[in-house]
C-alpha cells in the first residue's frame, strides 16, 4: 500500500461560509497501480491532490483525516520533510504546462534544479541527466531543447518537459492533474502513451485526475468517481465501464460521446447542474438530479459501502 488516505477533510473557510471541497474521502493506491480520480469541475478532485502535498491555497486547509505515504503520516511531517516528499517521492504534473513552467528559466535549468535539490547531483551531473530525461520523455534533440525557454516550445513539448521535472526526483507516485486537457487530440494521445511508458520504466504509481472518461478507460486500473467533495463510486475499470452502479457514474458515462457510437442521437446526459458548494442539497447531494431519488435520499449523504469485492458505492438505491 503506497498511499492510504483515511477520512480526509479539506475545507475552505470563506466569508460566505465553509466550502467542503474534500469531505471525508478515503482511498488507497498500490505501488505501480494507475488510479483515476474522475469528476467534473468543482468536485474537489484537485484539492485531494493538493492535500496530499500540503499545497492547498488559503483560505483552505486540511481539517481532518490521515494520509499515509509509504507508511508515514504526511500530516505529521514538518516543512522540511514535506519538501523532501514533494520532490523525491511524489511528483505532480499540472494541467497547463505553459503556466506551470517558469518562463524565465530554460527548460533544462528547471529539470536540473530538481536534480540538484532532490538527488544531490552536481551542476555538471544535473546538466547531463536533464538532457537524458528530456530524451526519455520523447523530446527530439534534447541537447538543443534543454536550452530553450518554455515559450519556445509547443504545448505538447511543454507538457513533456513538465513531466520530466516531475519524474526527475524518481518519485514513487506521480500525480497528473488533467495532464491532457489543454492539448490537441494527437498530442493528448502521445502524452498518455508517455505516461504509461514512464510508469513502467520507473516503477511509479500513477494518480490520474481527470474529467475525461476516454482517458480513464485507456489508462486506469481502478477508478474513483467524485461528486461535490465525496467519492460516490469506486471500482476496477472494466467493472465500471461494463456495469456502473451509481446513478451519477451512469450519467457521466452516458454523457460522453464515443466515436462510432450513437451517431445523430441525443446523448443521455444528466439533468440540472452541479450545485454550488455553498448551497449543497440536503442528504445525498446528487438526489435533485437523480432519476432514482426519493425521500430516503434527503436524510443524509449515503455512506460509501462495499457492494462487491473491490467495488464500493455511495447510494441508498444500490446494494
Amino acid at each position, binding site marked *: 500500500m503506497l498511499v492510504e488516505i483515511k477520512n480526509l477533510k479539506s475545507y*475552505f473557510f470563506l466569508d460566505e461560509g465553509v*466550502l467542503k*471541497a474534500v469531505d471525508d474521502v478515503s482511498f488507497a493506491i498500490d505501488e505501480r497501480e494507475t488510479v483515476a480520480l474522475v469528476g467534473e*469541475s468543482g468536485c*474537489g478532485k*484537485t*484539492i485531494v491532490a493538493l492535500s496530499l502535498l500540503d499545497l492547498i*491555497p488559503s483560505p483552505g486547509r486540511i481539517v481532518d483525516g490521515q494520509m499515509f505515504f509509504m507508511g508515514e503520516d504526511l500530516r505529521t511531517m514538518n516543512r522540511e520533510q514535506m519538501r523532501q516528499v514533494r520532490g523525491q517521492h511524489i511528483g505532480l504534473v499540472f494541467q497547463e504546462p505553459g503556466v506551470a513552467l517558469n518562463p524565465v528559466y530554460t527548460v533544462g535549468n528547471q529539470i536540473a534544479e530538481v536534480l540538484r535539490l532532490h538527488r544531490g547531483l552536481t551542476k555538471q551531473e544535473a546538466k547531463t541527466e536533464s538532457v537524458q530525461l528530456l530524451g526519455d520523455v520523447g523530446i527530439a534533440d534534447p541537447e538543443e531543447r534543454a536550452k530553450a525557454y518554455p515559450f519556445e516550445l509547443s504545448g505538447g513539448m511543454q507538457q513533456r518537459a513538465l513531466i520530466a521535472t516531475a519524474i526527475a526526483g524518481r518519485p514513487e507516485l506521480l500525480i497528473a492533474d488533467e495532464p491532457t486537457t489543454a492539448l490537441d487530440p494527437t498530442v493528448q494521445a502521445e502524452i498518455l502513451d508517455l505516461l504509461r511508458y514512464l510508469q513502467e520504466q520507473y516503477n511509479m504509481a500513477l494518480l490520474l485526475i481527470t474529467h475525461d472518461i476516454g482517458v480513464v478507460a485507456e489508462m486506469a486500473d481502478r477508478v474513483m468517481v467524485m461528486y461535490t467533495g465525496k467519492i460516490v463510486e469506486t471500482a476496477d475499470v472494466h467493472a465500471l465501464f461494463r456495469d456502473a452502479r451509481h446513478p451519477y457514474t451512469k450519467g457521466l458515462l452516458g454523457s460522453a460521446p464515443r466515436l462510432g457510437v450513437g451517431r445523430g442521437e441525443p446523448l443521455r446526459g444528466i439533468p440540472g447542474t452541479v450545485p454550488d*458548494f455553498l448551497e449543497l442539497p440536503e442528504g445525498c447531494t446528487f438526489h435533485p438530479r437523480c432519476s432514482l431519488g426519493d425521500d430516503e435520499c434527503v436524510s443524509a449523504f449515503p455512506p460509501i459501502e462495499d457492494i462487491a469485492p473491490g467495488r464500493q458505492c455511495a447510494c441508498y438505491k444500490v446494494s
Partner: protein
Amino acid sequence: MSNARAAPWLALVPGLGHLALGRRAKGMHLLVFAFATGFILIWRLDRVTGAFQSRAVDQLVAALFLIGSLLFVAAYSRWDVQRIVERADEPPMAVKSPWRIAGRRFRENTLAVASLYVIAVFYLAAILAPLLAPYDPSAIENVLETRYLVPSGAHLFGTDEFGRDLFTRALYGARISLSIGLLAMLLSKVLGTFYGAVAAYFGGLVDAVLMRLVDVIIAFPTFYLMLMLVGVFEANIVLLVLILGLTSWPGTARYIRGEILSLKEQEFAESARAIGLPPRLVIVRHLIPSALSPVLVSAALSVAGMIGAEAGLSFLGLGIRPPTPSWGNMVSGGQDALLVAWWVAFFPGGLLALTLISFSLLADGIRDALDPKVLMRRFV
C-alpha cells in the same frame, strides 16, 4: 412590515418612511440631509429671500440649490417609499449587477465611506457658502481692532491681517479650489476618453496620427506652459480649469485606446459585431463600460491632483490672486505671519490636506470595490 400602511404618510418627512420600512441606512441619510438643509433654510431665511431680491448670482445659485435639494429629497423619499410598498408582495430580487456588487463592497470599507462623507460635506459647504458664511469674505472694517484675532466663537478660524473672517474666506476658497478640481478632472477625463475611443475606433493611420499627437503633448513640459499662460493672462477659474484639464488628458486617452483595442478582440465584442452592431455602438455600449473602472479610480486621484495643482499655483501667486480667496493663496498669505498668527495658514492648509487625503482614500476604496476578482469564484 406592518408599517407598510403608515409608511407613505410618514414619508412626508423625508426618511421617516424608509425607517418605518426598515431601510435604516437610506432613511437615516435622507432624514439627516433633510434636517440639515431645512435647518439652514430656516436659519438663513433672510439671506435666501435676499438672494431672490438682489438677484446676485452667487446667492441665487446657493439659494436655489438649497431649496431644490430639499424639494428633491422630499419628492424622492415619497416616490421611493411608494415603490417599495408596491413591490412588497413580489419576491425580493437581488439584482447582482457588477456595479451594485462594487457599491456593496465600497460601503463595507469604512475609511472610504468616511472620506466620501468628508468630500460631500466640503462640496455642499462650498455650494452653500453664501448662505453659511457668517461674514462677508472681503469686508474690511476696523482693521486695527479685528486683525489677527485668535480663533474663537465669533471667528471660528480667526481673522487674517486685514481682519477678514477666515472661516468665511475658507468657505469661499473651497468654492474655487473644489470646483476647479472637479471641472478640470471632468474636462480631462471626458476629452481623454473620447479621444482614445476615436483613435481606437478608426485605427490605422488616424490612430497613428492621433497617438503621435498625444506623444508630443506628453513630452511637452506642461508645467512651464502653465506658468507662462498664467503669467500672461489674468488667472480666473475658467482659465485654470482649461489649463489643468488640457494638459492632463493624454494619459487617459492612451489608456482608453489601449483598453479598447485589447477588449475589441474579446469574444463579447466579436459577438456584438456578429449580431450586426455598428462599430461605434460596439465601442460605446460594450467596450467603454468595461474599460471605465480604472478611469474612475484615476478620476478620484485626478481631482486631488488638480486641487493640489491649483493650490500650488495660487500659493506661488500665479493662480487665483487675492483678494479672491483660494486655499492656496490663503496659505501663502499666512506664511509671513506663521509665528504670530498660525491659524491664518493652518486652517486652509489643513483643509487642503484633508481634502487631498480624502480623495486619495476614496480612490483606494473605488479600486478595491471594483476589483474584478469579485466576479470570479472558481478555484476548486
